[in-house]
């Protein structure tokens, strides 16, 4: 009887959005303080990215003559760096880059990866075998090494970093979505849609996509946090954005040799990266629990 009930339920395809689901979602979030903190941090940083440059008292590249190496004070809350630039302003300006570059790249990687994953998972067969193995081989190379090689080839620029992140993450997203799709392919409601004579794109995007959405949300959030780290790492290695950019990774790299004299130059961008990455991770973890997504992360 209960088995029967289950099969009836699963025969109804989950919808993409519904008011009741949204309410339940927020209820779940409210009951998990860590997830709530994660989401608040994430939203906070988005707001910083939007309004940061407006709040910042100085331009990110402005050398304030005679004010280099000043410790944090009322005038310079985060102090000034070795060249006399306001660290507070630079961190605020930097929020935009660290959100936008990984954000755009993650979005593109998730969209491409979802399309690929759905298609491969649904069709299967030799196409799936060939493309999946090709993508697997890309996964075998450590991300940072691949990024260094690619950036070395196409030259360091914002667009370059976005392209690199997309190329790195499409295989990962594809893999996750493909395996989620494989699980759903044999479900009753997909069979039903096929029997109704629905088109393939309808089945992929209206029937299967809502089913893999939890996996997608978790994967997207996780990829985003990794992308932030990767962007910061590339900036740290000097392969990302160019000076005088307030990229946090670059700021940390530039502050390192000056740590003994101006430690605050390193503290604040490093703390900003840490808080953002922890926040996004808490959010991803919360999403996984809420969606009861047990897949591989």
């Amino acid at each position, binding site marked *: 009887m209960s088995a029967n009930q289950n099969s009836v339920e699963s025969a109804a395809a989950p919808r993409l959005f519904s008011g009741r689901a949204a309410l339940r979602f927020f209820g779940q979030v409210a009951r998990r303080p860590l997830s709530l903190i994660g989401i608040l941090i994430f939203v906070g940083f988005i707001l910083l990215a939007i309004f940061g440059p407006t709040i910042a008292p100085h331009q990110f*590249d*402005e*050398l304030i003559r005679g004010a*280099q190496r000043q410790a944090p004070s009322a005038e310079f809350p985060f102090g000034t760096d*070795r*060249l*006399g630039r306001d660290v507070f302003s630079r961190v605020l300006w930097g929020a935009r880059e660290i959100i936008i570059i990984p954000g755009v790249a993650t979005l593109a990687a998730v969209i491409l990866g979802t399309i690929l994953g759905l298609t491969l998972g649904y069709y299967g067969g030799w196409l799936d075998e060939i493309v999946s193995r090709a993508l697997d081989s890309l996964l075998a190379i450590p991300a940072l090494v691949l990024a260094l090689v690619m950036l*070395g080839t196409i030259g*360091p620029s914002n667009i370059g970093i976005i392209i690199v992140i997309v190329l790195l993450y499409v295989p990962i997203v594809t893999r996750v979505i493909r395996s989620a799709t494989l699980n759903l392919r044999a479900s009753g409601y997909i069979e039903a849609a096929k029997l109704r004579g629905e088109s393939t794109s309808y089945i992929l995007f209206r029937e299967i996509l809502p089913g893999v959405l939890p996996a997608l949300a978790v994967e997207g959030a996780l990829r985003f946090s990794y992308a932030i780290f990767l962007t910061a790492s590339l900036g740290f290695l*000097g*392969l990302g954005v*160019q*000076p*005088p950019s307030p990229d946090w990774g670059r700021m940390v790299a*530039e502050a390192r*040799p*000056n740590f*003994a*004299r101006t430690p605050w130059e390193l503290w604040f961008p490093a703390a900003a990266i840490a808080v953002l990455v922890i926040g996004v991770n808490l959010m991803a973890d919360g999403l996984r629990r809420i969606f009861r997504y047990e897949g591989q992360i």
Partner: protein
Amino acid sequence: MLHYRKPRRRIRHIVIFVSLFLLLIGAISTQAQDGGILRVGMNPPAVLDPAQISNDPELALNRAIYDYLVEVNPVDSSIIPEIGTSWTISDDGLTYTFTIAEGVAFHDGSALTSADVAFSFQHLKDVSSRALSLLGDYEVSAPDATTVTFTIPERNSVFLYGLASPQAVILKDGTTEANVLGEGDAAFANFNGTGPFILTAYTPGVGGKAVFTRNDNYWKEGQPKLAGMEQIYFADVDAQINALLSGEVDFIFKLPLAQVGTLGQNENVNVILTQTAQHAVIRLRTDAGHAGEDVRVRQALKYATDRDFLNDLLLDGLGTVGHNDPIAPAYGIFYNPDFQDIAYDPDKACELLSEAGIETLEGKLYAPIAFEYADLAATLQQMWGETGCINVEIETVEEGLYYDFSNPDNYFEVDLGITGWGHRPSPQILLRLAYVESGIESGWNESRYVDPRLEELVKQANETTDVEELKAIYAQVSEVFNDTGPIIIPYFAPLVSASSAAVTDLVVDPFPGLTDYRNVSVAG
């Protein structure tokens, strides 16, 4: 009776010999205690063969074991005699005749002759040592036991500096492969120099060290003062600094500038600043189709650059601001401190640009990721931006890639870039490499700068070794650079070293690996 006396006399002799021997040992050990043991922290050397050495730890190892024919005075760049106690140069400038010091012995006990010196310099040619870049072509011979003669095909004002190259150590005749580790007792037989120290133990790599003992037969009276020296190998500068602070080493010779303030607060540490000719050039390409083709653009950038501010901001004012030419204040005898070069005047910069028909000078400033060069680029961008007529973007490139000719945007090709130039013992070396027409083809004249006046002056300087004459020529070189030069030299960087307070009489060489330890002592 006689039969009984003999043994007694023998005993007396033995007693006298033994007591003399003990006295001698006593004398040596007191002397040894006087100078102490100097422990120098450094990165491990990779190459031991003196003909092929290049980095400081390699120089330091060889410097301890071997002597040189002549040396460069670390303070004013003049040439000082060593194994070659005196020399004459023929009127045509093509024959150099050296008299060799007497009473010099190798560590194996054999006496030094002119044949050893001639062999050493022939060996440099045989193995194409990098010392040849200054020496050029030459023939060397030993006409008698105390004379060595060099003949060169054309005048070369830096030939003496070539003879003082770090690779030009004096080897024992026939030592075609110097510094090869042997087996057992003969482990260091092949490290056979005439120098102040004898190698007694060597463990390569990080954590290893080279141990030297005093050469008691050293030919210079009273030298070395040290009883011995240890060169201890560390992975990086941070480890060296920690070792100095914990008393594990007495001297480290190459530190980041930021350490001056930090280490300076420690009363057990002496921070030593040595002015060098190491510098960055900000250079414009001057060949057709590039921004610097117009002299007014070159001059505008000079007017727009406040070099004193750059020195204060980036080097804490510890560098030396010279003129916009490669003749550094560190070249004491050749530098003209009275010359008035172009001073900072941003309005004049924009005026010149507008005369040249440029409203805003746009471009990309390339900088290698090394030293403070990325900060220099960021500061220049702001400083030039403040004029309102110069607007540059920055591209920083990993150092190895920037100096790699297979990269299309390498230092030699870019329109506007920052290039690091290491210390050289004479300004002539740089002038004839990088600022003459022949340097374009050889891959050194990165700005493609050709000025007929400079060509002539460099040629004149090449043909004389007379210091006063050279001084007059270099004064004119400064004028040419000031009028049409495509480079800005913001400052000449100092070398930062540090020693424990117990170390005395230490003069650091601008090539720190060549630092002379013969007069140094360490208090117990």
